[in-house]
């Protein structure tokens, strides 16, 4: 019984620590976008290995969010180059899903205008992906010749200066809008419900071996 109590204490402490660590993290914020347009440029099943010039790589960029959508996304690698030198790079493994793919990259100290963004969406001829962005203007060039009919939209992300915890009241206020339970009270109901769940689980865990 004592061992069970200790395990429960450790488990709950771990849970509290994990929640605490999550709350002191900073949410990602968009520091730059290469184009406001989000029109469909191409729907393809074939590998996309393209470079688009004229990008600005902001300092402290931690991730790039490419407007590439797929149901079962392939591996994506990105490189940002200036004067033939790789400034930063990163990759996202296959298996992602959704309307965008976020690729973490190594942050750089200074902002670099006139950079070239190269990305490789490693399709194998089966699954299809669609690219969205600004048609025509500053088309991305394929590695094997030809081009994508436009510039793929890219958002440059970095961690914001504030933590989730410091934004708690703002998040609670946001939950009032467009939600089923119209009002901040729903936040407190959720907290109360989950606190009850924790208490019930603890009670049941302690009773388990009786």
């Amino acid at each position, binding site marked *: 019984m004592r061992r069970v109590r200790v395990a429960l204490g450790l488990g709950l402490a771990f849970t509290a620590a994990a929640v605490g660590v999550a709350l002191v993290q900073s949410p990602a914020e968009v520091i730059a976008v290469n184009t406001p347009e989000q029109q469909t440029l191409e729907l393809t099943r074939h590998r996309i290995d393209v470079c688009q010039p004229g990008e600005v790589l902001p300092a402290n960029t931690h991730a790039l969010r490419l407007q590439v959508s797929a149901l079962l996304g392939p591996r994506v690698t990105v490189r940002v180059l200036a004067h033939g030198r790789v400034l930063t790079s990163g990759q996202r493994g296959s298996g992602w899903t*959704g309307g965008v793919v976020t690729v973490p990259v190594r942050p750089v100290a200074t902002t670099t205008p006139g950079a070239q963004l190269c990305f490789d969406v490693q399709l194998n001829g089966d699954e299809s992906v669609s690219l969205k962005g600004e048609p025509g203007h500053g088309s991305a060039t394929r590695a094997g010749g030809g081009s994508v009919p436009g510039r793929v939209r890219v958002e440059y992300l970095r961690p914001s200066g504030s933590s989730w915890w410091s934004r708690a009241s703002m*998040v609670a206020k946001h939950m009032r809008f467009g939600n089923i*339970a119209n009002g901040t009270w729903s936040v407190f109901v959720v907290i109360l419900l989950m606190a009850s769940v924790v208490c*019930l689980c603890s009670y049941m865990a302690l009773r388990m071996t009786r």
Partner: protein
Amino acid sequence: MSRSSRKRLVSIQTRDGDGANGVRVRSRRRQAQLASSRKKRSHFALGERVAWTSPREILRAVPKIAWLCALVACMNAVAWSLITPPFEVPDEPEHVAYVKQLAETGRLPTRYGSFSIEEELALEDLHLQTVAEQPQNQTISSQGQEEQLQQDLARSRRLDEKGSEYAGVAASEPPLYYALQVIPYSLGSGSTLLDRMELMRLLSAIIGGLTALFTFMFIREALPGAPWAWTVGGLGVALVPLLGFMSGAVNPDAMLYAVTAALFYCLARAFRCGLTRARAISIGSVIAIGFMTKLNFVGIAPGALVGLAVLSARARRTIGSAAYASLAMALAIALSPPAVYVIAHLASGAHTLGIVSSALHVARGSLWSRVSYIWQLYLPKLPGMHADFAGVFTTRQIWFDWYVGQYGWLDTGFPGWVEDLALIPAAAIAALCVRSLVAGRRVLRARAAELAVYGAMSVGLLVLIGMDSYLTFPRLGAEFGQLRYVLPLIPLLGAALALAARGAGRRWGPVVGVLVITLFLAHDLLSQLQVVARFYG
């Protein structure tokens, strides 16, 4: 069965471990079963009616801890229902439209047309088009947008429009879940669509509680040896975030999980205590409810019907041909909904099995290419197979990673490192589970038929999902490769958790069990935070 023989049987069952004295206990149970079956045979021979237990007695027989598991699952689902913005669950707009049509017109919807003005306005004001599948976009966040939404919701209530002819993908689903949802929908008839949605979500949450309850009862029947481990399995399932997410939404999947859990329980009970007429009718009724809940049940049903046949063959040894009468009755009940479905489609000149026909008659590709695709949807490619998912390890990247977290319109998940980290506890749980199975291999052999039935139910569902996904392959790699479709098998996860806890041995088992519970609790809480951050951060 007489009162005394039932008592004896119960007392033996509670002691029926799968451990060292299993053989002795089994022989005593066998004697008790023979004694009771002799009585039963004479009862049936005399044409005695089935002795029904009152609903009150049935409810009283459910242990308190099972109710608490249900309460945890229900509260968890209610929390999810409040966190998840309206319509930000796969296909929720279509399911809401189905309920609206049924509640306001009494007619079934179709796959064609458009949503009602009321729902269209809500979807537009909530910016569903730009929020769903676009994790960079959040829900509306200003007072002005909220006022616009409330004004439009109030305005649309004053319209004469009734129902929603269009329900898209939901239109092909059977009506039972939606018919139940008509009750909360009608209760909130004086309020806005979003308020009615919350009431409907609450009903789903209650159904989610039933999933946990039946899972607990299934584990109790399937693994009677260590009662403390039932709590581990039951609570673990109650805290699965995806169950909370789906049970906190308007979606017939929530009810399919509960029905399948009930089916697992009924089968386990019958395998443990024998097939009586009442149990056969229960299994038949649950199968019928499954058919009326969601089309995906078509994948589970064959395995369950095989289970009924196996149970009847066993029962024949003890109660004679009366077992086949029970089987016939169960089959008649179970197969009546599909029979009505087929007749209705034949009468209207449509395919015999409606939309199910499309999955069953995949014209494209050879049988081998279909088998190869379905295999690779779940497991690594074997030599000689064409790579249908080149570069994707489906077992890990679709099923495991998406179990770790994939909420909203599959647009809200954890960072990759969390998925990597999750492999450690998952591997530990799997290893303990295997250890437990190896230790109890003698019992496993004795229960091979029962396990084969659960296996057939699982494989049937997986093959159905694979066949449906193959319809859109290769345009879409795995359209139905979503974990929510596999969640009807959640009672088996509960059993695996209970086995894992038992695998740690008598001394450390409860400790491991408590750690498993807290792990699932942490996973649930962090998943909720992830959803809050994605939609409101």
